[in-house]
């Protein structure tokens, strides 16, 4: 059409979805989870989108944490726990027998409610999982340690005492160290199980800001009881409810929709504080 060789033309379109379309990274299909034959989570299907923060909300005992632990197969550690349905991470079935659990957990970091740094030095807390996954060169380990500690805003506070015990840190610092430890393995996905609930309001705010900064670089799934927090930080929200001691997914959608114009009356009642 245009014969002018200097004219600016676009190259052929790259295959794949356009960048503004959310891409599912984790696809949960008909997930049913039972402990000792009792169903804890019934037939949940949802997509977790790449680079987004997905909040899991709902009352206690509705299976949010069980759902979270199924994603990195922490449920394997519970002897009587059974799982039906499929969870695909990057189109790979993680419950397939060929799936390498250690490699999976390297890709999917997890942060727990109660910060539990290892009773080692701050430096060693981060070096230990790195060494375990084959990063043994001292220089490389030191560089990663500095990077992740800077990422969680802890470097300035601890750079002169990296060899001190991690247990000498305050609760909020310990939680940030645990996040740094998870980030050191360069995961794609971060699972967070109420990461702020054991912290005081100021430390909780620091961790919340940190989670917001991680958005985009990591795909984050966060369980929280703090609805205001979910509303502030999440892109998507999944609302779970418990019926006859069985957890169910009631509604999943964009965070704004869940909080402002939910489809279900139950969701509206919960997010407005009328139920739960």
């Amino acid at each position, binding site marked *: 059409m245009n014969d002018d060789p200097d004219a600016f033309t676009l190259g052929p379109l790259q295959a794949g979805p356009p960048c503004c379309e959310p891409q599912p990274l984790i696809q949960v299909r008909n997930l049913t989870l039972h402990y000792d034959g009792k169903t804890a989570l019934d037939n949940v299907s949802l997509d977790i989108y790449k680079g987004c923060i997905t909040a899991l909300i709902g009352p206690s005992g509705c299976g949010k944490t069980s759902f979270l632990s199924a994603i990195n197969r922490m449920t394997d550690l519970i002897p009587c726990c059974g799982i039906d349905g499929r969870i695909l991470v990057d189109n790979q079935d993680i419950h397939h027998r060929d799936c390498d659990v250690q490699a999976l957990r390297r890709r999917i970091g997890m942060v727990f409610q109660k910060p539990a740094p290892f009773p080692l030095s701050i430096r060693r807390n981060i070096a*230990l999982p790195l060494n375990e996954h084959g990063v043994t060169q001292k220089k490389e380990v030191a560089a990663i340690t500095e990077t992740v500690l800077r990422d969680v805003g802890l470097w300035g506070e601890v750079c002169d005492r990296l060899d001190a015990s991690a247990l000498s840190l305050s609760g909020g610092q310990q939680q940030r160290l645990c996040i740094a430890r998870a980030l050191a393995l360069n995961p794609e996905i971060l699972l967070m199980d109420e990461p702020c609930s054991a912290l005081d309001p100021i430390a909780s705010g620091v961790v919340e800001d940190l989670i917001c900064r991680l958005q985009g670089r990591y795909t984050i799934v966060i369980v929280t009881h703090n609805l205001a927090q979910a509303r502030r930080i999440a892109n998507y929200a999944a609302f779970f409810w418990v019926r006859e001691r069985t957890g169910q997914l009631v509604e999943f959608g964009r965070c704004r929709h869940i909080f402002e114009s939910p489809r279900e009356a139950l969701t509206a009642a919960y997010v407005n504080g009328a139920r739960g």
Partner: protein
Amino acid sequence: MLTDRVLTGILRSGALLSALIMLLILCFLLLESWPALTGLPVAGFLTDPSWHPLESAYNLMPMLSATLLASIGAITLAVPLGIASALFIVFFAPSHLASLYKRLIELLAGIPSVVFGFWGLTVLVPLISEWQPPGASLLAAVLVLTLMILPMIAITAYTALAAVPDELLQNAAALGLSRWGTIAGVVLPAARAGITAGIILAAARALGETMAVLMVAGNVVQHPESLFDPVRTLAANIALEMAYAMGDHRSVLFVSGLLLMLLVMALSAMAGLLEKHRHV
């Protein structure tokens, strides 16, 4: 509150009594060994030509070296075995096997020392004798002591390992650590204080163990040149000679008792120091 004050009083006097008894034993030992410590040249305990009490030769060194060597040998063997047993129970064994195995170890801890000695004398010593006569030897003492302190190390290590919080194990698993990586990197450091305390206790027991060692060690007063030489430990010496010792001889036996006690106290002080200088 009255009850509060009464309770505090009872607890205080209980603690005081325990401390007092310990102090009294130390005073008694000092008092009884005083004649030897003041009347005899103290250097003689190190330099006398041998242990011949009737000829006033009181060299304690061969017996001290035998005591230390037997204990060190037993600790060297029992520590890895004990910790391995505890790790097996906590992390590797299926639960029914774990409880059975734990029961067995507790049973082993309850066997009276004289029975260990008896077994050593009738089974172990002849076995060693076939290989390297005379059989009653430092090696026999080491092996019998190993068996005796093994359950103590295993049980204390088990307690320390079982007390490692679940959260640490969860975190380790979530970071993709292998089972061995978790044990070496997280569990053992977390349980170190408890395991060390168990080892120190076991070492104290090995130093002071009398009957079983007396029955299998051969009781010749000498610096052992090999594992197969018969030896006499300080504790065995006291038991062997207390009945007929008189005068200076009797007093020197108390000196060796005092020496044993000092060794144990040094061990416990070392444990305290280790605890203080822990890296983390």
